[in-house]
């Protein structure tokens, strides 16, 4: 089955964001790229189940997310290990591409339970609506909302972001925000 050119373009267009999602989930660039590759292979093998006119990006995110979860279970036996080994993985490979600048934020993110982390990224960074994020994660919209809220609360504690007088670790963010407020 040859790939339609528009399908190929839609897939390629989704790859950068898919990688960012995968890196945010796994905390590891190499593993993230393997996840993306596996996602693309699965997507193409099942391209007939993609409904033209629907959101290609959301479809690919769903595949990647499900694949990550099943791999995660295999590797770690438990799904929820937000405090544990994932954070250690990050510390053991701190200087990877693209991770130096955002290290403190990534480490805080690594301390969230996996379900909160993915919900926050999908809504807060990937730009999906709560409804789309709920579809991707296979749960109710209300569940996504509460996960995002809990994730934000926890992150603000971990990063000690409380008020305008206290700044987080990232000077650039501080500068950008100062100019915008």
């Amino acid at each position, binding site marked *: 089955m040859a790939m339609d050119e528009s399908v190929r373009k839609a897939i390629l267009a989704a790859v950068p964001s898919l990688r960012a999602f995968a890196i*945010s989930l796994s905390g590891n660039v190499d593993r993230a790229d393997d996840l993306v590759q596996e996602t693309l292979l699965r997507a193409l093998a099942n391209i007939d189940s993609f409904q033209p006119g629907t959101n290609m990006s959301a479809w690919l995110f769903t595949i990647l997310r499900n694949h990550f979860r099943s791999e995660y279970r295999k590797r770690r036996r438990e799904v929820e290990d937000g405090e544990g080994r994932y954070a250690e993985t990050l510390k053991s490979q701190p200087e990877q591409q693209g991770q130096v600048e955002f290290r403190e934020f990534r480490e805080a993110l690594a301390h969230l339970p996996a379900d909160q982390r993915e919900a926050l990224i999908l809504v807060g960074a990937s730009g999906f609506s709560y409804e789309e994020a709920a579809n991707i994660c296979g749960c109710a919209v209300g569940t996504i909302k509460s996960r995002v809220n809990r994730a934000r609360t926890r992150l603000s504690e971990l990063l000690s972001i409380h008020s305008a007088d206290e700044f987080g670790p990232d000077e650039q963010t501080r500068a950008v925000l100062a100019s915008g407020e």
Partner: protein
Amino acid sequence: MNERKPARQQKPMETTATRKKNNTKPAKLSREVQARLGQQLRAMYDDVVSQGVPDRFVELLNRLNGDANKDSH
């Protein structure tokens, strides 16, 4: 259920009216804190997005597409 609760002593009005609400911080984050978190999250994410599509994925799609074409002829 006939058991009656002891009648409560009525509190004088003036103390309830002036009492301040609980002074501890609510669980909900301020818009400002949410904005700062969102900013950092997107900066981290967009840093990766801006790297574009690595060659390996372009090649992968081309290869798969080529194989598929071959199969169909």
